[in-house]
Protein backbone atom coordinates (compact mmCIF):
# COMPACT_ATOMS: atom_id res chain seq x y z
CA UNK A 1 0.00 0.00 0.00
CA UNK A 2 1.44 3.34 -0.93
CA UNK A 3 1.01 6.26 1.40
CA UNK A 4 0.13 9.58 -0.11
CA UNK A 5 3.09 11.83 0.44
CA UNK A 6 2.22 14.96 2.33
CA UNK A 7 4.66 17.84 2.42
CA UNK A 8 3.77 18.23 6.06
CA UNK A 9 5.70 15.90 8.24
CA UNK A 10 3.45 14.45 10.91
CA UNK A 11 3.99 16.19 14.20
CA UNK A 12 5.16 13.04 15.84
CA UNK A 13 6.74 10.52 13.53
CA UNK A 14 8.39 8.28 16.07
CA UNK A 15 8.33 7.75 19.76
CA UNK A 16 11.17 5.95 21.37
CA UNK A 17 11.27 6.03 25.15
CA UNK A 18 11.85 9.61 26.14
CA UNK A 19 12.94 10.79 22.71
CA UNK A 20 10.45 12.04 20.22
CA UNK A 21 10.46 13.93 16.98
CA UNK A 22 8.65 17.22 16.93
CA UNK A 23 8.06 19.55 14.03
CA UNK A 24 8.56 23.21 14.82
CA UNK A 25 7.16 25.44 12.11
CA UNK A 26 6.65 26.32 9.31
CA UNK A 27 3.98 28.43 10.96
CA UNK A 28 5.52 29.38 14.26
CA UNK A 29 5.79 32.85 15.78
CA UNK A 30 9.47 32.46 16.63
CA UNK A 31 10.96 30.90 13.54
CA UNK A 32 11.15 34.34 11.87
CA UNK A 33 9.41 33.21 8.76
CA UNK A 34 8.59 29.90 7.22
CA UNK A 35 11.28 27.69 8.70
CA UNK A 36 10.49 24.18 9.74
CA UNK A 37 12.81 22.45 12.16
CA UNK A 38 12.53 18.75 12.78
CA UNK A 39 13.51 18.43 16.39
CA UNK A 40 14.54 15.24 18.07
CA UNK A 41 13.93 15.97 21.70
CA UNK A 42 14.37 14.18 24.97
CA UNK A 43 12.04 15.96 27.33
CA UNK A 44 12.89 19.62 26.88
CA UNK A 45 16.38 18.94 25.58
CA UNK A 46 17.22 19.02 21.92
CA UNK A 47 19.09 15.98 20.71
CA UNK A 48 19.09 16.85 17.05
CA UNK A 49 17.74 19.71 14.97
CA UNK A 50 17.23 19.42 11.25
CA UNK A 51 16.18 22.63 9.49
CA UNK A 52 13.80 22.13 6.60
CA UNK A 53 13.81 25.02 4.16
CA UNK A 54 12.09 25.82 0.89
CA UNK A 55 8.69 26.94 2.15
CA UNK A 56 9.22 30.30 0.48
CA UNK A 57 10.94 29.14 -2.68
CA UNK A 58 10.02 31.84 -5.16
CA UNK A 59 12.18 31.05 -8.18
CA UNK A 60 13.60 34.55 -8.14
CA UNK A 61 16.86 33.64 -9.84
CA UNK A 62 15.02 31.89 -12.67
CA UNK A 63 12.48 34.71 -13.02
CA UNK A 64 15.33 37.22 -13.26
CA UNK A 65 16.62 35.44 -16.37
CA UNK A 66 13.42 36.30 -18.20
CA UNK A 67 13.49 40.01 -17.37
CA UNK A 68 15.55 42.92 -18.67
CA UNK A 69 18.63 43.78 -16.66
CA UNK A 70 16.81 46.69 -15.05
CA UNK A 71 13.58 44.76 -14.48
CA UNK A 72 15.43 41.90 -12.79
CA UNK A 73 16.25 44.29 -9.99
CA UNK A 74 12.57 44.37 -9.08
CA UNK A 75 12.47 40.70 -8.17
CA UNK A 76 15.96 40.81 -6.67
CA UNK A 77 14.86 43.47 -4.17
CA UNK A 78 12.23 41.04 -2.95
CA UNK A 79 14.85 38.48 -1.99
CA UNK A 80 16.02 39.86 1.32
CA UNK A 81 12.95 41.88 2.09
CA UNK A 82 14.41 43.46 5.20
CA UNK A 83 17.22 44.98 3.19
CA UNK A 84 15.96 45.57 -0.35
CA UNK A 85 18.44 48.35 -1.04
CA UNK A 86 21.42 46.16 -0.09
CA UNK A 87 20.33 43.60 -2.68
CA UNK A 88 19.78 46.26 -5.30
CA UNK A 89 23.13 47.81 -4.44
CA UNK A 90 25.01 44.57 -4.90
CA UNK A 91 23.26 43.72 -8.14
CA UNK A 92 23.84 47.20 -9.56
CA UNK A 93 27.53 47.07 -8.67
CA UNK A 94 27.84 43.69 -10.36
CA UNK A 95 26.10 44.79 -13.55
CA UNK A 96 28.10 48.02 -13.61
CA UNK A 97 31.29 45.97 -13.48
CA UNK A 98 30.15 43.96 -16.47
CA UNK A 99 29.28 47.15 -18.31
CA UNK A 100 32.66 48.59 -17.35
CA UNK A 101 31.15 51.80 -15.99
CA UNK A 102 32.18 51.40 -12.35
CA UNK A 103 34.58 54.35 -12.52
CA UNK A 104 32.08 56.62 -14.21
CA UNK A 105 29.43 56.61 -11.49
CA UNK A 106 29.03 60.20 -10.22
CA UNK A 107 30.18 60.97 -6.71
CA UNK A 108 26.76 62.06 -5.48
CA UNK A 109 25.18 58.81 -6.68
CA UNK A 110 27.81 56.82 -4.80
CA UNK A 111 27.19 58.81 -1.63
CA UNK A 112 23.43 58.42 -1.82
CA UNK A 113 23.83 54.68 -2.35
CA UNK A 114 26.07 54.30 0.67
CA UNK A 115 23.57 56.28 2.72
CA UNK A 116 20.66 54.12 1.53
CA UNK A 117 22.60 50.93 2.21
CA UNK A 118 23.42 52.01 5.75
CA UNK A 119 19.90 53.25 6.47
CA UNK A 120 18.63 49.89 5.25
CA UNK A 121 21.02 48.15 7.60
CA UNK A 122 19.65 50.11 10.55
CA UNK A 123 16.06 49.39 9.48
CA UNK A 124 16.86 45.70 9.13
CA UNK A 125 18.50 45.55 12.53
CA UNK A 126 15.45 47.35 13.95
CA UNK A 127 13.24 44.49 12.77
CA UNK A 128 15.72 41.94 14.10
CA UNK A 129 15.89 43.63 17.51
CA UNK A 130 12.14 44.07 17.75
CA UNK A 131 11.33 40.47 16.85
CA UNK A 132 14.17 39.10 18.94
CA UNK A 133 12.69 41.04 21.85
CA UNK A 134 9.24 39.59 21.22
CA UNK A 135 10.69 36.07 21.18
CA UNK A 136 12.12 36.71 24.62
CA UNK A 137 8.97 38.33 25.97
CA UNK A 138 10.29 41.89 25.84
CA UNK A 139 7.46 43.41 23.86
CA UNK A 140 8.21 47.09 24.43
CA UNK A 141 11.45 46.93 22.46
CA UNK A 142 9.38 46.06 19.41
CA UNK A 143 7.46 49.34 19.62
CA UNK A 144 10.60 51.44 19.95
CA UNK A 145 12.32 49.59 17.11
CA UNK A 146 9.45 49.79 14.68
CA UNK A 147 8.92 53.43 15.48
CA UNK A 148 12.49 54.12 14.45
CA UNK A 149 12.14 51.91 11.40
CA UNK A 150 9.12 53.94 10.31
CA UNK A 151 11.29 57.04 10.21
CA UNK A 152 13.74 55.26 7.93
CA UNK A 153 10.96 53.93 5.73
CA UNK A 154 9.63 57.48 5.45
CA UNK A 155 13.02 58.49 4.09
CA UNK A 156 12.99 55.63 1.60
CA UNK A 157 9.48 56.52 0.55
CA UNK A 158 10.48 60.15 0.06
CA UNK A 159 13.44 59.15 -2.10
CA UNK A 160 12.16 56.16 -4.02
CA UNK A 161 8.40 56.38 -3.76
CA UNK A 162 7.78 53.13 -1.89
CA UNK A 163 8.22 52.15 1.72
CA UNK A 164 9.77 48.75 1.44
CA UNK A 165 10.94 48.06 -2.10
CA UNK A 166 11.84 51.52 -3.37
CA UNK A 167 13.85 50.32 -6.41
CA UNK A 168 15.72 53.56 -5.92
CA UNK A 169 19.25 52.36 -6.65
CA UNK A 170 19.71 51.76 -10.36
CA UNK A 171 22.40 50.46 -12.64
CA UNK A 172 24.36 53.62 -13.35
CA UNK A 173 23.33 55.66 -10.34
CA UNK A 174 20.09 56.32 -8.54
CA UNK A 175 16.63 56.82 -9.96
CA UNK A 176 16.12 60.46 -8.98
CA UNK A 177 17.72 63.11 -6.85
CA UNK A 178 16.84 63.38 -3.20
CA UNK A 179 13.59 65.33 -2.87
CA UNK A 180 13.30 68.64 -1.08
CA UNK A 181 12.72 68.16 2.61
CA UNK A 182 14.74 64.93 2.64
CA UNK A 183 17.68 66.45 4.46
CA UNK A 184 15.45 67.86 7.20
CA UNK A 185 13.87 64.44 7.69
CA UNK A 186 17.30 62.84 7.75
CA UNK A 187 18.53 65.37 10.29
CA UNK A 188 15.53 64.61 12.49
CA UNK A 189 16.42 60.92 12.35
CA UNK A 190 20.08 61.59 13.12
CA UNK A 191 18.96 63.76 16.02
CA UNK A 192 16.61 61.15 17.43
CA UNK A 193 18.86 58.13 16.92
CA UNK A 194 21.28 58.33 19.88
CA UNK A 195 18.48 58.82 22.40
CA UNK A 196 16.52 55.93 20.96
CA UNK A 197 19.56 53.68 21.08
CA UNK A 198 20.12 54.67 24.69
CA UNK A 199 16.51 53.70 25.45
CA UNK A 200 16.92 50.35 23.73
CA UNK A 201 20.16 49.61 25.52
CA UNK A 202 18.54 50.49 28.83
CA UNK A 203 15.56 48.30 28.03
CA UNK A 204 17.48 45.29 26.81
CA UNK A 205 21.23 45.30 27.12
CA UNK A 206 21.43 45.66 30.88
CA UNK A 207 18.27 43.67 31.49
CA UNK A 208 19.15 40.68 33.72
CA UNK A 209 16.29 38.58 32.32
CA UNK A 210 17.52 39.13 28.80
CA UNK A 211 21.09 38.35 29.83
CA UNK A 212 19.94 35.12 31.44
CA UNK A 213 18.36 34.11 28.17
CA UNK A 214 21.23 35.11 25.88
CA UNK A 215 24.54 34.76 27.69
CA UNK A 216 26.34 31.47 26.95
CA UNK A 217 23.52 30.26 24.72
CA UNK A 218 24.48 29.00 21.28
CA UNK A 219 28.22 29.48 21.57
CA UNK A 220 29.97 29.38 18.21
CA UNK A 221 33.74 28.96 18.02
CA UNK A 222 35.86 30.65 15.38
CA UNK A 223 36.63 27.29 13.76
CA UNK A 224 32.96 26.36 13.56
CA UNK A 225 32.06 29.74 12.15
CA UNK A 226 34.67 29.37 9.42
CA UNK A 227 33.65 25.81 8.62
CA UNK A 228 30.04 26.86 8.25
CA UNK A 229 30.93 29.94 6.12
CA UNK A 230 29.24 32.24 8.61
CA UNK A 231 29.53 35.91 7.75
CA UNK A 232 28.25 39.18 9.14
CA UNK A 233 27.51 39.98 12.78
CA UNK A 234 27.39 36.28 13.71
CA UNK A 235 30.98 35.82 12.49
CA UNK A 236 32.20 39.03 14.07
CA UNK A 237 30.72 37.93 17.38
CA UNK A 238 33.29 35.11 17.40
CA UNK A 239 36.16 37.59 17.06
CA UNK A 240 36.92 37.43 13.34
CA UNK A 241 36.93 40.96 11.97
CA UNK A 242 35.68 40.19 8.48
CA UNK A 243 33.57 42.91 6.98
CA UNK A 244 33.24 43.17 3.19
CA UNK A 245 33.15 46.95 3.48
CA UNK A 246 36.65 46.84 4.96
CA UNK A 247 38.10 43.72 3.31
CA UNK A 248 36.97 44.45 -0.27
CA UNK A 249 35.79 48.05 -0.30
CA UNK A 250 33.22 48.93 -2.92
CA UNK A 251 31.15 51.91 -3.97
CA UNK A 252 33.27 54.47 -2.13
CA UNK A 253 33.29 52.96 1.37
CA UNK A 254 37.01 53.74 1.61
CA UNK A 255 36.09 57.36 2.24
CA UNK A 256 34.18 56.74 5.44
CA UNK A 257 35.35 56.02 8.92
CA UNK A 258 33.75 53.20 10.83
CA UNK A 259 34.79 50.44 13.19
CA UNK A 260 34.39 46.76 12.44
CA UNK A 261 32.73 45.64 15.64
CA UNK A 262 33.95 42.36 17.05
CA UNK A 263 33.46 40.45 20.25
CA UNK A 264 35.08 37.25 21.36
CA UNK A 265 32.41 35.34 23.28
CA UNK A 266 30.57 33.97 20.22
CA UNK A 267 27.31 33.48 22.13
CA UNK A 268 23.88 34.93 21.45
CA UNK A 269 24.57 37.91 23.67
CA UNK A 270 27.72 38.72 21.71
CA UNK A 271 25.76 38.61 18.46
CA UNK A 272 23.16 40.86 20.07
CA UNK A 273 25.77 43.42 21.13
CA UNK A 274 27.58 43.35 17.80
CA UNK A 275 24.37 44.24 15.99
CA UNK A 276 23.52 47.02 18.43
CA UNK A 277 27.00 48.52 17.98
CA UNK A 278 26.71 48.10 14.23
CA UNK A 279 23.59 50.22 14.15
CA UNK A 280 25.58 53.02 15.73
CA UNK A 281 28.42 52.56 13.25
CA UNK A 282 25.94 52.68 10.38
CA UNK A 283 24.56 55.93 11.67
CA UNK A 284 28.12 57.20 11.92
CA UNK A 285 28.54 56.50 8.20
CA UNK A 286 25.19 58.14 7.43
CA UNK A 287 26.32 61.26 9.28
CA UNK A 288 29.57 61.35 7.31
CA UNK A 289 27.70 60.95 4.02
CA UNK A 290 25.28 63.66 5.04
CA UNK A 291 28.15 66.08 5.62
CA UNK A 292 29.97 65.07 2.44
CA UNK A 293 26.95 65.32 0.10
CA UNK A 294 27.60 67.80 -2.69
CA UNK A 295 25.22 68.76 -5.47
CA UNK A 296 25.93 67.08 -8.76
CA UNK A 297 24.64 64.49 -11.22
CA UNK A 298 22.95 61.45 -9.68
CA UNK A 299 23.36 59.04 -12.57
CA UNK A 300 25.82 58.20 -15.26
CA UNK A 301 25.64 60.38 -18.35
CA UNK A 302 25.27 57.51 -20.78
CA UNK A 303 21.95 57.18 -22.57
CA UNK A 304 22.80 53.59 -23.51
CA UNK A 305 22.36 52.60 -19.85
CA UNK A 306 20.34 55.30 -18.13
CA UNK A 307 17.28 56.77 -19.89
CA UNK A 308 17.71 60.48 -20.59
CA UNK A 309 15.89 62.91 -18.27
CA UNK A 310 12.17 62.93 -18.90
CA UNK A 311 12.03 66.65 -19.68
CA UNK A 312 14.42 66.27 -22.62
CA UNK A 313 12.19 63.79 -24.42
CA UNK A 314 9.86 66.39 -25.85
CA UNK A 315 12.77 68.54 -26.98
CA UNK A 316 15.21 66.15 -28.57
CA UNK A 317 14.63 63.38 -31.09
CA UNK A 318 17.79 61.67 -29.87
CA UNK A 319 16.53 61.59 -26.30
CA UNK A 320 13.18 60.22 -27.39
CA UNK A 321 14.84 57.38 -29.31
CA UNK A 322 17.13 56.45 -26.41
CA UNK A 323 14.25 56.56 -23.96
CA UNK A 324 12.13 54.37 -26.22
CA UNK A 325 14.94 51.88 -26.76
CA UNK A 326 15.70 51.50 -23.05
CA UNK A 327 12.06 51.22 -22.08
CA UNK A 328 11.17 48.65 -24.74
CA UNK A 329 14.26 46.46 -24.97
CA UNK A 330 16.47 47.44 -22.05
CA UNK A 331 20.21 47.79 -22.36
CA UNK A 332 22.70 45.18 -23.48
CA UNK A 333 25.56 44.01 -21.31
CA UNK A 334 28.82 42.69 -22.78
CA UNK A 335 29.39 38.95 -22.31
CA UNK A 336 31.22 37.94 -19.19
CA UNK A 337 30.74 37.01 -15.59
CA UNK A 338 31.44 38.78 -12.34
CA UNK A 339 31.11 38.15 -8.61
CA UNK A 340 30.34 41.15 -6.49
CA UNK A 341 29.81 41.10 -2.74
CA UNK A 342 28.57 43.73 -0.34
CA UNK A 343 28.19 43.67 3.42
CA UNK A 344 24.47 43.17 3.89
CA UNK A 345 22.85 43.39 7.30
CA UNK A 346 23.22 39.63 7.67
CA UNK A 347 26.68 39.18 6.19
CA UNK A 348 28.38 38.79 2.86
CA UNK A 349 25.71 39.24 0.26
CA UNK A 350 27.05 38.28 -3.13
CA UNK A 351 25.83 38.19 -6.69
CA UNK A 352 27.44 36.13 -9.40
CA UNK A 353 26.09 37.56 -12.62
CA UNK A 354 26.65 36.05 -16.05
CA UNK A 355 25.87 37.83 -19.30
CA UNK A 356 25.76 36.35 -22.77
CA UNK A 357 25.68 39.76 -24.35
CA UNK A 358 21.92 40.07 -24.42
CA UNK A 359 19.44 42.41 -22.80
CA UNK A 360 18.56 39.87 -20.13
CA UNK A 361 20.82 38.26 -17.52
CA UNK A 362 21.99 34.78 -18.48
CA UNK A 363 22.30 33.81 -14.83
CA UNK A 364 21.96 35.63 -11.54
CA UNK A 365 23.31 33.51 -8.72
CA UNK A 366 22.96 34.83 -5.20
CA UNK A 367 25.08 34.15 -2.19
CA UNK A 368 22.50 34.79 0.49
CA UNK A 369 24.14 35.22 3.90
CA UNK A 370 21.09 33.88 5.72
CA UNK A 371 21.29 30.49 4.03
CA UNK A 372 24.88 30.01 5.12
CA UNK A 373 24.30 31.39 8.58
CA UNK A 374 21.34 29.08 9.06
CA UNK A 375 23.70 26.10 8.72
CA UNK A 376 24.93 26.91 12.19
CA UNK A 377 21.55 26.00 13.64
CA UNK A 378 22.21 22.30 13.20
CA UNK A 379 25.40 22.52 15.19
CA UNK A 380 24.31 25.02 17.81
CA UNK A 381 20.94 23.61 18.80
CA UNK A 382 21.76 20.15 20.23
CA UNK A 383 22.17 20.18 24.00
CA UNK A 384 20.03 23.26 24.45
CA UNK A 385 16.45 23.62 25.58
CA UNK A 386 13.66 24.30 23.08
CA UNK A 387 13.35 27.79 24.53
CA UNK A 388 17.01 28.39 23.73
CA UNK A 389 16.48 27.32 20.14
CA UNK A 390 14.20 30.33 19.73
CA UNK A 391 17.03 32.51 21.01
CA UNK A 392 19.53 30.92 18.63
CA UNK A 393 17.29 31.39 15.58
CA UNK A 394 16.68 35.00 16.57
CA UNK A 395 20.35 35.71 17.10
CA UNK A 396 21.27 34.28 13.68
CA UNK A 397 18.67 36.61 12.12
CA UNK A 398 17.69 34.59 9.05
CA UNK A 399 15.37 36.03 6.40
CA UNK A 400 13.56 33.36 4.49
CA UNK A 401 12.97 35.29 1.32
CA UNK A 402 16.71 35.12 0.98
CA UNK A 403 17.24 31.56 2.23
CA UNK A 404 14.70 30.01 -0.13
CA UNK A 405 14.83 32.64 -2.90
Amino acid sequence: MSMTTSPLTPEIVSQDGNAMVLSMGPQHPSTHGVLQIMLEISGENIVKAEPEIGYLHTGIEKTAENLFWSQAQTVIERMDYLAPSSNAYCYCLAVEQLLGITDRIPERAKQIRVMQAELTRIASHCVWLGTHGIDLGALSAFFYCFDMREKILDLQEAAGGARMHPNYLRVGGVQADLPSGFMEQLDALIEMFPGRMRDLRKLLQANPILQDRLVDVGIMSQEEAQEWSITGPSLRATGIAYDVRRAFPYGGYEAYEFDVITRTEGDSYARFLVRLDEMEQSMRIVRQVRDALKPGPIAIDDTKVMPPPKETIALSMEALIHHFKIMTEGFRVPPGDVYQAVEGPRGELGYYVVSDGGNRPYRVRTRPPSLYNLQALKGLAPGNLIADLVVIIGSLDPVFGEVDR
Partner: protein
Amino acid sequence: MEVGPGHFLLAKLDDVARWAQSSSVWPLTMGLACCAIEMMSATAPEYDIGRLGSEVFRASPRQADLMIVSGRVAQKMAPVVKRLFDQMADPKWVISMGACASSGGVFDNYAIVQGVDTIIPVDVYVPGCPPTPDGLLYAVNLIQQQIREGGRGGLLART
Protein backbone atom coordinates in the same frame (compact mmCIF):
# COMPACT_ATOMS: atom_id res chain seq x y z
CA MET B 1 -29.84 51.36 19.03
CA GLU B 2 -32.02 53.80 20.94
CA VAL B 3 -31.75 55.25 24.41
CA GLY B 4 -34.63 54.27 26.70
CA PRO B 5 -36.27 56.50 29.36
CA GLY B 6 -33.97 55.18 32.11
CA HIS B 7 -30.26 54.43 31.82
CA PHE B 8 -30.47 51.57 29.36
CA LEU B 9 -30.14 50.96 25.65
CA LEU B 10 -32.41 49.00 23.43
CA ALA B 11 -30.91 46.96 20.66
CA LYS B 12 -31.33 43.74 18.80
CA LEU B 13 -29.16 40.94 20.17
CA ASP B 14 -27.87 40.29 16.64
CA ASP B 15 -26.57 43.82 16.34
CA VAL B 16 -24.86 43.73 19.72
CA ALA B 17 -23.27 40.38 18.99
CA ARG B 18 -22.06 41.51 15.59
CA TRP B 19 -20.73 44.74 17.05
CA ALA B 20 -18.79 42.79 19.66
CA GLN B 21 -17.54 40.30 17.12
CA SER B 22 -16.46 42.88 14.60
CA SER B 23 -14.46 44.70 17.28
CA SER B 24 -12.34 41.70 18.17
CA VAL B 25 -11.15 40.15 14.95
CA TRP B 26 -8.04 38.28 15.99
CA PRO B 27 -5.55 37.54 13.22
CA LEU B 28 -3.39 34.45 12.95
CA THR B 29 0.34 34.93 13.42
CA MET B 30 1.31 33.76 10.01
CA GLY B 31 3.99 35.69 8.15
CA LEU B 32 5.05 34.52 4.73
CA ALA B 33 7.22 37.17 3.09
CA CYS B 34 7.68 40.91 2.63
CA CYS B 35 4.05 41.69 3.46
CA ALA B 36 4.51 40.08 6.87
CA ILE B 37 6.89 42.91 7.76
CA GLU B 38 4.26 45.46 6.77
CA MET B 39 1.74 43.44 8.79
CA MET B 40 4.08 43.84 11.77
CA SER B 41 4.34 47.54 11.01
CA ALA B 42 0.56 47.71 11.22
CA THR B 43 0.78 46.56 14.84
CA ALA B 44 3.50 49.10 15.62
CA PRO B 45 2.75 52.52 17.16
CA GLU B 46 2.54 54.48 13.91
CA TYR B 47 -0.43 52.50 12.60
CA ASP B 48 -1.61 50.61 15.69
CA ILE B 49 -4.03 47.96 14.51
CA GLY B 50 -5.11 47.80 18.16
CA ARG B 51 -7.47 50.67 17.41
CA LEU B 52 -9.56 48.16 15.49
CA GLY B 53 -9.34 45.51 18.21
CA SER B 54 -7.13 43.31 16.07
CA GLU B 55 -3.83 43.61 17.91
CA VAL B 56 -4.13 40.16 19.46
CA PHE B 57 -2.23 38.01 17.00
CA ARG B 58 -2.78 34.38 17.91
CA ALA B 59 -0.12 31.79 17.20
CA SER B 60 -2.68 28.99 17.22
CA PRO B 61 -5.16 28.77 14.35
CA ARG B 62 -7.74 27.48 16.83
CA GLN B 63 -7.91 30.90 18.46
CA ALA B 64 -7.79 33.04 15.34
CA ASP B 65 -10.66 34.59 13.37
CA LEU B 66 -8.73 36.15 10.56
CA MET B 67 -6.05 34.78 8.32
CA ILE B 68 -3.87 37.44 6.72
CA VAL B 69 -2.07 35.75 3.85
CA SER B 70 0.88 38.10 3.95
CA GLY B 71 3.12 37.36 1.04
CA ARG B 72 3.84 34.94 -1.74
CA VAL B 73 2.52 31.42 -1.26
CA ALA B 74 5.09 28.93 -2.52
CA GLN B 75 3.94 25.57 -3.84
CA LYS B 76 5.52 23.94 -0.81
CA MET B 77 3.74 26.28 1.59
CA ALA B 78 0.32 26.00 -0.04
CA PRO B 79 -0.75 22.77 1.75
CA VAL B 80 0.34 24.33 5.04
CA VAL B 81 -1.76 27.44 4.42
CA LYS B 82 -4.72 25.26 3.50
CA ARG B 83 -4.29 23.17 6.64
CA LEU B 84 -4.02 26.23 8.84
CA PHE B 85 -7.19 27.62 7.30
CA ASP B 86 -8.97 24.32 7.92
CA GLN B 87 -7.80 24.35 11.54
CA MET B 88 -9.30 27.78 12.21
CA ALA B 89 -12.66 27.64 13.91
CA ASP B 90 -15.74 29.04 12.15
CA PRO B 91 -16.55 31.83 11.58
CA LYS B 92 -13.36 32.90 9.85
CA TRP B 93 -12.20 35.44 7.33
CA VAL B 94 -9.27 35.73 4.97
CA ILE B 95 -7.39 38.79 3.77
CA SER B 96 -5.16 38.28 0.78
CA MET B 97 -2.46 40.83 1.42
CA GLY B 98 -0.41 42.03 -1.50
CA ALA B 99 -0.04 41.26 -5.17
CA CYS B 100 1.64 37.88 -4.68
CA ALA B 101 -1.05 36.42 -2.46
CA SER B 102 -3.78 37.85 -4.67
CA SER B 103 -2.49 36.84 -8.08
CA GLY B 104 1.11 35.67 -7.92
CA GLY B 105 2.27 39.25 -8.49
CA VAL B 106 5.59 39.63 -10.25
CA PHE B 107 6.32 35.96 -9.72
CA ASP B 108 4.51 34.35 -12.61
CA ASN B 109 6.57 31.18 -12.42
CA TYR B 110 6.71 27.52 -11.40
CA ALA B 111 7.28 28.18 -7.70
CA ILE B 112 4.43 30.45 -6.64
CA VAL B 113 0.72 29.71 -6.30
CA GLN B 114 -0.99 32.14 -8.67
CA GLY B 115 -3.36 33.58 -6.11
CA VAL B 116 -4.17 32.11 -2.72
CA ASP B 117 -7.86 32.13 -3.70
CA THR B 118 -7.11 29.00 -5.70
CA ILE B 119 -6.78 27.11 -2.41
CA ILE B 120 -8.82 29.03 0.20
CA PRO B 121 -11.74 31.49 -0.03
CA VAL B 122 -10.67 35.12 0.22
CA ASP B 123 -12.88 37.93 1.59
CA VAL B 124 -10.77 41.00 0.96
CA TYR B 125 -7.87 41.58 -1.41
CA VAL B 126 -5.32 44.28 -0.66
CA PRO B 127 -3.34 45.56 -3.63
CA GLY B 128 0.26 46.66 -3.35
CA CYS B 129 3.73 45.21 -3.30
CA PRO B 130 3.76 45.31 -0.39
CA PRO B 131 0.60 47.21 0.58
CA THR B 132 1.10 49.96 3.12
CA PRO B 133 -0.11 49.24 6.64
CA ASP B 134 -2.94 51.71 5.93
CA GLY B 135 -4.07 49.35 3.21
CA LEU B 136 -4.17 46.48 5.65
CA LEU B 137 -6.07 48.56 8.19
CA TYR B 138 -8.64 49.40 5.52
CA ALA B 139 -8.98 45.71 4.71
CA VAL B 140 -9.65 44.93 8.38
CA ASN B 141 -12.22 47.73 8.31
CA LEU B 142 -13.94 46.07 5.37
CA ILE B 143 -13.98 42.75 7.22
CA GLN B 144 -15.59 44.50 10.19
CA GLN B 145 -18.15 46.02 7.88
CA GLN B 146 -18.94 42.58 6.46
CA ILE B 147 -19.43 41.20 9.95
CA ARG B 148 -21.74 44.05 11.03
CA GLU B 149 -23.83 43.55 7.93
CA GLY B 150 -24.05 39.84 8.71
CA GLY B 151 -22.14 38.93 5.59
CA ARG B 152 -20.44 35.69 4.74
CA GLY B 153 -19.17 33.81 7.75
CA GLY B 154 -20.78 36.18 10.26
CA LEU B 155 -21.66 35.05 13.78
CA LEU B 156 -25.22 34.16 12.89
CA ALA B 157 -24.53 32.96 9.38
CA ARG B 158 -24.82 29.31 10.32
CA THR B 159 -28.23 29.59 11.97
